[in-house]
């Protein structure tokens, strides 16, 4: 008789584990990736691969030489997700050496400094994105215009993003009706034929990925819905009050990084609250901050700042917003 295994209950387990979640996110990002290759060409592919590979390599090196650990954590897929999201949040024309620095910041400072997966307070890809934005403001705000299937690696035709046009127009006291003549149509925004960070341009591709994550139970809809609905309501109120000063809610939803941020960045499990109520508060906070930055801030886009600021509130939300226990009457 062989020895019996003794374990405490439960003796069966759901088949969803951490690597399956992480690789699931990777799969969900594929539609947006394909769209970015279509509109931004070979450079988008090279930039994304560089970002992913350097993230994985940095995590490996830190595991091995700084942590001196025998467990190499690169197989759980989280470094790949960080690499992909980082590349998706930068313009496709970004020099490769900058994305490599970004990867080091994301993995080194954003994640491994705190002890690795599960322990970082801020979304690593967003930490790196904001680091790059502040360090290399010109390269980070030079947006190549979409050119289907281009193989160019330099000399891009560039132009501002839709949000950039809006911000500049407002600063020049232009009327919104005038600004609207200069921005891309909503159909182009929906499909992704606009300037912008390479993964954020196509609403439809992001929604397909989000649906996949929802079906595979990787995300719940508390954060994305409360985030997007808050943006719609909050920006809608100002639009109704003064449609010549404030742009309409649909523009806010489709133009920038809101959908990518709401479905892929704000839902990052590690840095968002743990109760449904807390997640809704988190989403509302992100929504308010995004609209505030876009309408009155000096940056045209506010999604990454909004999510990072709310990341900082997550421990506080977790502390004060708890679930109501069964039978507490």
């Amino acid at each position, binding site marked *: 008789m062989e020895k*019996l295994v*003794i374990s405490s*209950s439960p*003796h*069966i387990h*759901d088949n969803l*584990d951490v690597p399956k979640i992480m690789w699931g996110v990777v799969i969900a990002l594929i539609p947006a990736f394909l769209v970015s290759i279509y509109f931004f060409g070979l450079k988008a592919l090279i930039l994304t691969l560089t970002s992913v590979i350097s993230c994985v390599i940095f995590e490996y090196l830190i595991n091995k030489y700084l942590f001196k650990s025998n467990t190499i954590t690169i197989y759980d897929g989280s470094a790949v997700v960080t690499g992909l999201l980082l590349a998706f949040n930068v313009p496709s024309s970004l020099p490769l050496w900058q994305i490599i620095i970004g990867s080091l910041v994301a993995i080194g400072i954003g994640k491994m400094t705190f002890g690795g997966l599960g322990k970082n307070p801020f979304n690593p890809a967003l930490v790196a994105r904001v680091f790059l934005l502040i360090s290399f403001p010109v390269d980070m705000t030079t947006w190549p215009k979409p050119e289907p299937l281009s193989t160019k690696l330099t000399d891009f035709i560039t132009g501002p993003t839709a949000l950039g046009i809006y911000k500049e127009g407002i600063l020049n006291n232009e009327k919104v009706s005038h600004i609207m003549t200069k921005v891309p149509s909503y159909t182009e925004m929906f499909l992704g034929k606009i300037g912008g960070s390479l993964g954020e341009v196509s609403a439809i591709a992001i929604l397909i990925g989000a649906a996949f994550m929802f079906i595979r139970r990787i995300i719940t809809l508390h954060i994305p819905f409360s985030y997007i609905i808050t943006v719609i309501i909050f920006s809608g109120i100002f639009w109704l009050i003064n449609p010549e000063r404030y742009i309409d809610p649909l523009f806010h939803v489709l133009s920038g990084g809101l959908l990518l941020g709401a479905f892929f960045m704000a839902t990052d499990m590690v840095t968002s609250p*743990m109760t449904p109520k807390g997640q809704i508060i988190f989403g509302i906070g992100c929504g308010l901050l995004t609209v505030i930055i876009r309408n009155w801030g000096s940056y045209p886009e506010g999604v990454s700042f909004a999510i990072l600021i709310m990341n900082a509130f997550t421990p506080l939300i977790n502390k004060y917003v708890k679930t109501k226990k069964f039978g507490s009457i």
Partner: protein
Amino acid sequence: MIKIKTFKRGGIHPDDKKLTKEVPIEEFPIPDKVYIPLTQNLGAPPEPIVKKGDFVKTGQLIAEAKSFVSANVHSSVTGIVEKIDEHIDVSGYRKLTIIINAEKTDNWVEDIDTSNNIVREIKIKNKSEIINKIREKGIVGMGGATFPTHVKLSIPEGKKCDYLIINGVECEPYLTSDHRLMLEKGEEILIGAKILMLALDVNTCYIGIENNKPDAINHLLELSKNYEGIIIQPLKLKYPQGAEKQLIYAITGREVPSGGLPIDVGCIVQNVGTTYAVYEAVQKNKPLIYRIVTVSGEGFIGKNFLVRIGTPIKLLINSVIGDQNYNFTSIISGGPMMGKALISTEVPVTKGTSGILLFKDYKEQKLYPCIKCAKCVMVCPMGLMPSLLEKLIANERIEEAHKNNVLDCIECGCCEYTCPSFRPLLEYIRLGKNKVLQMLKSKKN
């Protein structure tokens, strides 16, 4: 169409794997030797009243409950008491056990009705006499908790019972013993429910059944037409639908207060196996000496046996997997969600053994750090935060774990089942519950 009810918060949907649901109950042969532990109920163990060398008949009282929260034990076979000694039981410890060398045929105690006839006319009508009969026949909760039934039926002063709820949910994967019992002994269960209704003085009884058992639901629906006051209530397939508090909530919408008992909201819950045992005790004068056990597991169908209490489980395992080359790596007594892993095949079947499950190819799971995905929070039917409790208890912050309601945990295992990082959440919570209880005890003193 009857409305399908369910509890609301949390819960999981494991693959139900009811492999043996089509397999009729089969009477397991009398073993050569039975090992009847005295630790078959929650509360104080009964004291043996036989000694080595005594001849005992089937159904004879062999250990007597000396306190209120305890249960009598009867011999499940006819034979000679070989010895009263320590023998391994479900807990993995050696416990006082009456070992009887069994004869091949039964010599029943005279006043027991051993016929197969259904006795419809209820023999005892008086409330306290029914409870006394149940106490005398050693009946305990057969869903697995083994709480003495007569204690549950004795309603404290000032409380009133509105509903009797019969638990036929069987939400654990693999187990089909209650399912088969409802199909094969449906009418007996309804009579048992009627007896319990008399004992509790209630007019309404719900029988809750998960809707993965449509045959049992329809069968009991048909039979219940002749039994006034008994309502068959289909329930949604969701674990832990059969947990007492969740079941009461699903059926009546009442929430048992934290730290309270079902009677606080006017409900008493009994398992269908217990209800059948009540029928046998009252109508046939038969003590609790056998029960239905599902023997199943990974990679084979298995069987449903009617087993004498005290039968070593190795006999059940051998008769199901026989000579097949089946190298199981673990044996679970009960369901896979809440059952206990056994350390030996010598363990006997007791009053609380609802199933024996075999699992093979055990693989140690790789542990990942908590990624705060909140799945454990979302599935917890009690509204707790298991990942937080794990951290608090691992860091010995027992006071805070208590404040975060660790004692409300029903140990259903949903959190650990769903955890993508394979954290040992429930293990920490069990440890924490113990430490909190110790802390409260030392504070009292």
